[in-house]
């Protein structure tokens, strides 16, 4: 095997590939063609920056590494998916809470509302003088103003006799100032004594009114201590403050809630003349009326209600905290996976560094792995959350809807979560020191 070689110390080879003295240059030396080394080419000139290579090569390395360990990849994806579902559910509940908390207000259709400034939420209103409604009529732009009475009373389920608190909304249904979906055809029947319209979207504990109405026609239920006739259905939906809603005329409200003084109202709904300037009228109303009322548009009233649930209760915080915990748990899982991937491959990473790969390249690979996990975990997470929204929404009567906005938000959160985990795990790369390899 030993071949005789005479060296030419110090003299650079005239050819990259073969030295003049290389044994292969001698004609008697034959070798299989497969031994032909690939020809070296002119290389390592200044390389132009190639963004695709810059990102794709580390990405491919990361993907190949992730793919190699199926169990680890599966657990990482499960971790991200878990975080994803948790955040989706938390945000979904949060939004459903706020949506449903304001369901009543959102369905009260009127231009302007008067409310006592100390009223924090519609289910515990502060009363103010009925006279404010009449005073509001002083403005030429105001077409009509109706007082609204709110109260809660117990409702006896006509099917099984159980009692449950129901929200009563009493106002002049004829005036056409405030409208609820489905109210219009019932206006005439609600004029009769002791009649009510029931919210068909109330929780089922009140009894299946839709079916009963279909079977029996209008029938009597006990509200408070009085028998009232359910004549029709409207649609509002349950909120956190009230599981069910009942709309009735002002007079019937007074019959039902005897202790309520006519002069003490909870809201005033105002209808403006066509073409009236909403903002200007609001300003003038605020100037005109004493300080015991605030003037709000419907959107502002909804916001007022929403702010209560967001700020005055820990509910908003609870859901934000829940989301954060989900993200932290997901981050820890992803970090663990990436970290153990790096520590398990320290020698290989160090070898890559020795071969001339930069720390930056490897960092990009780790970050790519994190972002691959983000995408791979998000997609099934989205699907599962969609399914859960459907199921949980049906079970709880909460308006859980998957929106593009929320999906985008959650994806960005998951993306950032995985990115942070990647950045944390990246520090481990420093331990891959090629000098320790020998």
């Amino acid at each position, binding site marked *: *095997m*030993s*071949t*005789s*070689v005479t*060296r*030419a*110390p*110090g*003299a*650079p*080879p005239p*050819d*990259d*590939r*073969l*030295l003049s*003295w*290389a*044994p*292969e240059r001698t004609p008697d030396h034959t070798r299989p063609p*497969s*031994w*032909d*080394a*690939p020809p*070296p*080419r002119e*290389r*390592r*000139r200044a*390389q*132009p920056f*190639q963004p695709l*290579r810059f990102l794709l*090569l580390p990405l491919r390395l990361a993907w*190949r*590494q992730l*793919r*190699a*360990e199926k169990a680890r990849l599966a657990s990482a994806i499960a971790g991200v998916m878990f975080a994803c579902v948790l955040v989706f559910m938390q945000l979904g509940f949060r939004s459903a809470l706020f949506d449903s908390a304001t369901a009543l207000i959102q369905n009260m259709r009127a231009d302007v509302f008067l409310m006592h400034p100390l009223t924090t939420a519609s289910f515990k209103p502060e009363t103010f003088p009925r006279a404010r409604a009449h005073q509001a009529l002083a403005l030429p732009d105001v077409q009509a103003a109706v007082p609204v009475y709110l109260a809660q009373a117990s409702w006896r389920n006509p099917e099984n006799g159980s009692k449950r608190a129901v929200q009563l909304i009493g106002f002049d249904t004829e005036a056409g100032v405030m409208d609820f979906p489905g109210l219009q055809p019932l206006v005439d029947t609600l004029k009769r004594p002791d009649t009510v319209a029931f919210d068909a979207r109330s929780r089922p504990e009140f009894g299946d009114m839709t079916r009963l109405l279909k079977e029996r026609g209008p029938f009597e239920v006990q509200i408070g201590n009085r028998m009232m006739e359910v004549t029709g259905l409207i649609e509002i939906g349950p909120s956190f403050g009230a599981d069910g809603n009942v709309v009735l005329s002002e007079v019937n409200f007074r019959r039902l809630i005897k202790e309520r003084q006519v002069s003490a109202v909870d809201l005033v709904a105002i209808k403006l003349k066509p073409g009236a300037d909403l903002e200007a009228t609001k300003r003038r109303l605020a100037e005109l009326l004493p300080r015991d009322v605030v003037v709000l548009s419907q959107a502002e009233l909804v916001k007022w209600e929403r702010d209560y649930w967001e700020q005055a209760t820990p509910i908003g915080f609870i859901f934000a905290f829940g989301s954060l915990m989900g993200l932290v748990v997901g981050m820890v899982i992803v970090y663990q996976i990436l970290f153990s991937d790096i520590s398990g*491959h320290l*020698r*290989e990473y*160090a*070898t*890559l*560094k*020795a*071969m*001339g*790969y*930069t720390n930056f390249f490897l960092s990009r690979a780790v970050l790519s792995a994190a972002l691959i996990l983000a995408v791979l975990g998000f997609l099934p997470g989205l699907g599962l959350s969609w399914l859960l929204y459907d199921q949980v929404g049906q079970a709880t009567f909460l308006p859980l809807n998957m929106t593009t906005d929320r999906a985008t938000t959650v994806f960005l959160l998951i993306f950032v979560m995985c990115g942070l985990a990647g950045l944390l795990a990246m520090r481990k790369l420093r331990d891959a*020191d*090629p*000098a320790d*390899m*020998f």
Partner: protein
Amino acid sequence: MRSFEGAPVELRDIGHAYGTGDLARPVLRDVNLSVGPGEIVLLTGPSGSGKTTLLTLIGALRGVQKGSATVLGQQLAGAGERQRVALRRRIGFIFQQHNLLGFLTARQNVAMALELDGRTRESERLERAGDMLEAVGIGERAESVPANLSGGQRQRVAVARALAGNPGLILADEPTAALDKQSGGEVVRLLRELAKRRGVPILLVTHDPRILDIADRIVAMEDGRITATEAGASAAG
């Protein structure tokens, strides 16, 4: 290949110490060594003699503390991380363990050495990697992952990887340590064969007396100094 004047490796008065201050423990003292083009130099010596440290200095894996080291025309004394990384790309490394990426096939592992060159295409890289695997005699195992290769085959892949990028210098640290006598001998002879053909110098640290015969020159180290230099069996033969 970037052209340069002089020997591929030129070390002058290299000194190196681990630790600082009173705890500084010198591992290299006044080392002078030159490796000519195409030369195969074996470094031997007891463990702790500093030969591995010397190898990491030449490989630009460690900063040079004292003296001057010119490798492939690059002065390493005072060289920054960027220059050192650039130099590493022109050196082929072979380690005690194969250190192949377990999740890549043999071909992909070899291609990793070529990915550093931004001007090659993927198909080109894989083809060249295949050629290299042919050259080390395991072309038919190109699509196997390292776990399905024998120790000798893995080290052959490592040799192919070290040579794939057409390095100007090959540094090997006990490449036969994890191999049995036969496959160890085969791997280093293969390495020698391929390097000779391209005129690439090899600096190889070894304890293994069975492979001394591949050397053009054997350099013995002890206690951080070069104590003896002798012509190898190869040169003598």
